[in-house]
């Protein structure tokens, strides 16, 4: 595989359950420029992209995660969007994606969130139902910054707003008292 080629998923649509992702090869304009550097910036980006793609494939094959196909399809679409927006930058932060995967492995009954990418290409997962919001920003260092908004039942005109920082193995313990069972988690 020539070093200047980028490979990424040929699956622009989100709802593609039961379809295997296909790779599409994109060539940079300077694909045939010979470079003498042993390791270039494009090599680094290609390596990171390959790692991200591998992680997404692992998520897709993780049948112990309740909705692994839907999550993988969202990630594929986001990866492709990110490469279109900035072809010479990594699609998704590999470390952020790894942190997200760790979170999924520890919380297999998570409902499917809406996924998006932060300006630094980190995973941002949001669960929204009516006036309730739980969002988690998966940082590359392993921390997760989270936001929780929900109605204040005792004071209807006000909202409860909780923000904080945790790790993938502690986040749900911290949030558990807020009773996410009918909104972020599947029961049973």
């Amino acid at each position, binding site marked *: 595989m020539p070093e200047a080629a980028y490979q990424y998923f040929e699956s622009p649509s989100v709802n593609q359950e039961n379809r295997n992702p296909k790779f599409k090869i994109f060539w940079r304009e300077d694909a045939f420029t010979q470079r003498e550097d042993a390791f270039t910036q494009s090599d680094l980006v290609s390596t990171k992209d390959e790692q991200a793609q591998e992680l997404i494939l692992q998520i897709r094959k993780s049948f112990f995660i309740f909705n692994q196909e839907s999550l993988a399809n*969202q990630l594929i*679409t986001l990866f492709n969007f990110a490469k*279109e*927006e900035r072809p010479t930058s990594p699609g998704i932060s590999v470390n952020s994606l790894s942190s997200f995967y760790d979170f999924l492995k520890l919380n297999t009954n998570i409902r499917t969130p809406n996924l*998006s*990418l932060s*300006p630094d290409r980190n995973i941002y997962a949001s669960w929204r139902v009516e006036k309730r919001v739980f*969002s988690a920003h998966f940082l590359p260092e392993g921390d997760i910054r989270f936001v929780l908004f929900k109605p204040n039942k005792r004071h209807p005109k006000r*909202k409860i707003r909780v*923000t904080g920082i945790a790790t993938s193995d502690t986040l749900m313990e911290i949030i558990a008292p807020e009773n996410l069972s009918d909104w972020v988690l599947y029961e049973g």
Partner: protein
Amino acid sequence: MKGDAVPDSDNIARFCKPSTALNGIIEATAFMLRERDKGGLSVNWLEFLKCSDRDHEIKEVQRIYSETLSVSKNARIAILNVGEIRDIVRSETHDDRNIEVLHDPVSGGDQSHSEIHNLKPDNEEIAELILEVLRETHPAR
């Protein structure tokens, strides 16, 4: 004029990249700054365009985007009111954050360009608060 505050009564448009609006649903990430950014969040001042109605404002913003950005069919425009943004952030943040929307015309370019300042720290919380007062969304092209 550069540096003038956009009035609270006026409205702004924010370009939302496809990676912040999967399936056309704008997420809070559309209103976040990069960690290393020291400036403000770019927006367009709609009333500055002096269009007859919202449809014409949107068309004008789409034209501006087509000249200044790479606009994919999956990109979106978020419409927000300046006063609503400032009110919700001030009333709902622990430090009564006073964000500002300042006119920042581009020399020889986009004259409606403005910026939202004082967004950091608490990137996520403020982004979610801004999303809460999102008024409209439109295709970016």
